[in-house]
């Protein structure tokens, strides 16, 4: 039996009623304990405990990175009809012609698995034997807003909880001292907080944002976590706070008891959380692995390393955002200038490879799902026949690694140009279902009653993609 985490009114008055001098409250409250309360039970034996989602906002071009299409080289520069989604949605009756644009980066086979990937991500390419490519992804929404919301919440227009919130609701938190769902550097654009929001789920399942896109690194921290006063004064104020709370507590009123508990957890977080995300305590070799202190990779490298530290400390779902705080063009949104992909790839390639290597070396990769990708892909043809590519939700690539996914494997296929998924198609709902499955949750059973009906992350859709499970 775990001791009651709060003080009864009687005990508190007894202890504190006559002054503060001899108190050792900080120690009493600061101790670590195993998680209290009943954790919800998973539906299935879990293969993975946690997720690190590397969100590439704006949409990485699949045909320039992980989806090798020789036809694009053959037909480069030719004008062809394509079933362009924007044109279709505008209700145009004839298919517009577009110029086929070949990949800007060379493709090679990689590792034992022999998977074809391009030189856009040279370091990640070195980890293809750990990665499971999903080359037949398709999703909803041609614009960033709807597609980004769909990726995170399984719905574009309706207000639904984010996947991380569903996960916490289904599995509970692993850490007593940290929130269970963290989004590092999220953008306020394209749905903003809705992408890590709890919507109609209880508030304790909401995602915690660390900083925001475009903000300096020093702002990437838990909010209000630094004590506002010198340690001694902070302790005194905290003690008075809890004495008053204990005095005002009505025995048996659980909602009031929860207030005392919340202060205790806050106090523990205050002493614990800042140490969790501390790049300084990592070795020089580890820092170098992530490209920290290196031009171009420092920012995302630090965020990836933070993600590992948080995961290691029991945060169930960590999202690392590669995003800008822009209302219009997210980072990877190269409508006019595909070579710009190189700048973004350079910023994330080494840090992501470092993260994979680090997780593997620490034995964490086996029960951590690393999930990579954007809200959609890009067209295999030039937008307006210029030098960029447009959005393409009809077919694109995401990848997963670790967490019981089949390593060195490629699943599904797009058509010969890499435009639409045609073989073993994986809808975003399917991927959500599969990720939940690996974490021990049946997406059809993970429901929440709201507005008179049972809601799911996958609505009434989604199938677990069994072919990609190890």
């Amino acid at each position, binding site marked *: 039996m775990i001791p009651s985490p709060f003080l009864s009114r009687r005990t508190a008055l007894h202890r504190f009623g006559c002054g503060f001098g001899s108190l050792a409250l900080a120690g009493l409250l600061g101790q670590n304990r195993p998680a209290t309360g009943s954790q919800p039970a998973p539906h299935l034996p879990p293969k993975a405990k946690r997720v690190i989602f590397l969100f590439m906002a704006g949409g990485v071009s699949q045909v320039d990175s992980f989806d090798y299409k020789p036809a694009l080289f053959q037909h480069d520069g030719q004008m062809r009809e394509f079933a362009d989604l924007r044109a279709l*949605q505008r209700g145009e009756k004839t298919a517009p012609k577009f110029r086929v644009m070949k990949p800007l980066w060379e493709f090679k086979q990689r590792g034992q698995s022999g998977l074809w990937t391009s030189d856009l991500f040279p370091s990640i390419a070195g980890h293809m034997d750990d990665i499971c490519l999903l080359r037949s992804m398709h999703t909803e929404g*041609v614009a960033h807003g709807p597609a980004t919301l769909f990726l995170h919440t399984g719905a574009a227009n309706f207000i639904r909880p984010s996947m991380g919130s569903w996960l916490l609701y289904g599995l509970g938190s692993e850490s007593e001292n940290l929130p269970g769902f963290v989004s590092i550097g999220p953008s306020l654009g394209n749905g903003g907080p809705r992408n890590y929001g709890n919507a109609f789920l209880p508030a304790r399942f909401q995602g915690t944002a660390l900083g925001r896109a475009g903000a300096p690194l020093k702002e990437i921290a838990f909010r209000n976590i630094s004590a506002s006063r010198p340690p001694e004064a902070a302790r005194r*104020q905290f003690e008075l706070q809890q004495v008053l709370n204990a005095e005002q507590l009505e025995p048996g009123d659980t909602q009031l008891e929860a207030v005392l508990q919340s*202060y205790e957890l806050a106090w523990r977080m205050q002493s614990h959380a800042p140490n969790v995300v501390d790049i300084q305590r990592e070795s020089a070799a580890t820092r170098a692995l992530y490209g920290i202190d290196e031009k171009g990779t420092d920012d995302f490298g630090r965020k990836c390393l933070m993600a590992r530290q948080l995961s290691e400390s029991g945060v169930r779902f960590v999202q690392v955002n590669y995003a800008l705080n822009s209302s219009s063009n997210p980072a990877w949104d190269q409508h006019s200038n595909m070579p710009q992909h190189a700048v973004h790839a350079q910023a994330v390639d080494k840090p992501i490879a470092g993260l994979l290597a680090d997780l593997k070396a620490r034995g964490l990769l086996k029960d951590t799902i690393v999930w990579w990708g954007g809200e959609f892909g890009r067209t295999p043809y030039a937008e307006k026949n210029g030098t960029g590519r447009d959005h393409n939700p009809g077919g694109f690539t995401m990848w997963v690694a670790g967490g019981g996914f089949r390593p060195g494997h490629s699943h599904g296929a797009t058509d010969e140009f890499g435009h639409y998924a045609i073989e073993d*198609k994986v809808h975003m709902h399917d991927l959500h279902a599969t990720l939940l499955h690996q974490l021990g949750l049946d997406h059809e059973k993970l429901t929440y009653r709201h507005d008179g009906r049972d809601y799911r992350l996958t609505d009434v*859709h989604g199938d677990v993609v069994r072919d990609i499970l190890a």
Partner: protein
Amino acid sequence: MFPQPHFFRNSPWTGFLPTLSGLCAGVALHAQPLNPADTEFFEKMVRPVLDAKCLECHSPAKKVKGGLSLDSKPGWEKGGDTGPALVPGNPGESLLLKAVHWADRDLQMPPKKKLSDAEIAVLEKWIQMGAPDPRTEPGTGSRSTAMSMEAGRSFWSYAPLQNPPVPAVRNEAWPRTSIDRFLLARMEKEGLAPAPDAEPSVLARRLSLQLTGLPPTLEQLDQVAAATDPREALAHLADTLLASPQFGEAWGRHWLDVARFAESSGGGRTLLFKDAWRYRDYVVESYNADRPFDVFIREQIAGDLLPAADRDSRTRQLCATGFLAIGPTIYEEQDKQRLRFDVIDEQIDTLGKAFLGQTLGCARCHDHKFDPVSQRDYYALAGIFASTRTLSNYTDNVVSWVTQPLPVEPEISRRIEVESRAIADAEQELQSLKNRLAELRDRKAGIAKLPEKKPAPPLEPGVALPLSALHGVVLDDQDAKAVGEWKTSTFFPAYFGTGYLHDHNREKGAKSLTFTPKFPKSGSYEVRLSFPGFPDRARNVPVHIFHAMGDTTVHVDQNKTPEIEGRFVSLGTFFFEKDGDSYVIVSNEGTSGVVCVDALQFLPADEKQGPKTTDTSPATPNDAPDPVAALKSAIARKESQLSKLRGERFPVPVTMSVREEDTRGDTAIRIRGDVRQAGKTVPRGFPGVIGNLHAASFDSEHSGRMALADWLSSPKNPLTARVYVNRVWTWLFGTGIVRTPDNFATTGTPPTHPELLDHLASRFIEQGWSTKKLVREIVLSRAWQQVARTPAPTDPENRFFSHMNRRRLDAEQIRDGILSLSGQLDPRIGGPNIVGAADAAADSGDASKVEFGYVFTDVRRSLYTPAFRNNRLELFAAFDFGDINTPVGQRHASTVAPQALFFLNHPFVLEQARAAANRLLAEPETERLGNLFRRALSRLPTAAEARACSSLLSLPMPPAEAWAMVAQSIIGCIDFRYLD
């Protein structure tokens, strides 16, 4: 044709369904038993394919996607939502075959992997044979659990309102009002007794926080404490509070929750609703004026259509319609048809929950699974909103909302006119000064002057000019990334830089030039294209401008001389972000004639600061006045005059609203909610379970919103008054008589006291739909004045109201309470409150930036805190006021660690605690602790509390710091956060 033709569908809710075209029921051809060969063919060839590839999603035993069962002959005969799956003997007409061929992008079955050719051949042959199928028994599995319309009409919430008699009670001494009698009768039945009356000081706090959102003042506490008749003093206090303008602020806030009020759009690019405050103020004013609730409904649904007695009424009625416009619309949705229906859906869902307590949105895709609401009912309502214009246009990449100008007084109207003229004049003068400066500079630099006046001089002979002759951001043709072969020419010498490019008049559609400008700052720029016009040029050169708000395509006629200075055409003014991915593409797609490109110029639309390099350097007296410097300072003066004029101009007031659609009429059912799959057109009307209360008719002259408003606000509507009085009850008790205030349908909770609910609803209507009378009646009931306590195990949810519920304060009450304690609260009522909103065009990137970078600093009541959907005040997010995307009848009240961290460390709390301390230090020492407790908690400290505080105060540290720590602990304590 598209390579894979047909309409495209992009909805996650629709599944995969065929069109209705060419399909009529093709039913049972095979009444007699099958011959053995047919049976064998089915069993050996067909059944394995169906079992392995289809039944996972199309059999009642598992799922029945699209309403289609393929596990039995009756299943496919009946077919799915769009008709029979196959026509025996006719593969060409069979949807099943179409689906497995994957010929139509929207109808690909099985969805993940196409069947093999052999499997398809089997199905084709089977259908050709007449689809012999021995599985004649329909599969089991029910499809609908919905209540029938007849049963629905007698369901408690749809049944006509009753006015039941006030019941008798045993304990005649307790009740003061009829409310008390209804509640007590039930308590007696349940074996419960009412709790004692709460202390007058507790009731003063309860009244004040409930009616105004603010804690009582020390004077109010004193008055109640000193009263010889506390009951009368409390009644007097209630009347004072009801009459105070803060009542409208607190109660308007409740309604704003229901109306999912926000000041930005949230989803996708979040656009600023800079005029939404007018709706907010309308709501506050309505509560203060005790506007009858039926009028309040009519104004919000159809205010633009109501006759107005005067300008003020017209303004009020227009602002009220903001209710329909302020939803979380994703204005950049690319499928604009879908966007229209998303908006309609949001409006129906919101008004359904707000006024009727119904989840009507469920019927967008299918008949309601539980409630007697059909898809037909939904599209009958949708016709009303499809006949109403909510989006300003249906074509832009990012569309916008409808605004309506508000009437102004005649003298203001005159003023607006005068000011507009003055601004136009100043703009013209500024331009001419700038032209002179440019000319002067050019002369100094030895460059020929720019052609100045229209009509432009003949192009030949023109003069070549350096790029530096142009203001703003300038890109030469050579700066563009070229696709296809473009030839440099200098034939027509009126070019900038090194010549211009043309496309040889060849390979139409295969050539383009991409310009990627970099902007020194975000802002609006006029984009101009320079080219030599000539009769052999293309008349329709497509230029795509990708700016911060989307992309715009302009077609340029190069056949004639450019309008501006003989060199440029203006492509329009657009917003560009400093670090955005902006670009302009000129292409030769669809052109006939030569396409020419010389240069692109981006002129800042509002150069607020004039050139200042030489303005500050004093002129040397000996020198002759430098004409350039003189012109520059004249420009600077003119610019500052212009900016002053703009700043001082009377803002033409507009409000977010709706109007009647250009064409009005009925709309068609959308099969499974898919906007492109129109089913039968249904006449506009109201949900059948309630019916047409006043025989409203619909025509092509009107949207039908007025009829809808009348129907909603009718005393005969069984839901409206019930739902509203229950909301008021919920706001006052913390829980409702119906505990699901937004859901009065079959999946909601039935009322614990149906007679009381009907009594209150009938009385509410009788008393002229007056909110204040209803509130007064409830707060003066003995039931509302019981003590608050932890629920007893016998009634853990306090369903019988045998005591008051203890409630956590709302986020706004917490913030306003802190500001009251510190004495910092700015009590101004109404008006706009978003810094920077007035200067930003609402649908520009500027406006999003206002939200993204917003620093919340004001200390007005929380009602006025900018209510952005994506950037909430941190305190609001922490205390359950985070999501304002859907109607909220009852706030959550979570208790989580980030709240404690907020109280321990947030600068706002610390700052206000220090202000509270300074306020106390100015008061007599002996009164300080008492005043602190009374201001924050409306009571004096207990002995233990006083001891704990004193022991901290006695520590050696500056009194201001010690008092701040005590004040902070009071702000963070249970009794501050909870209302007894």
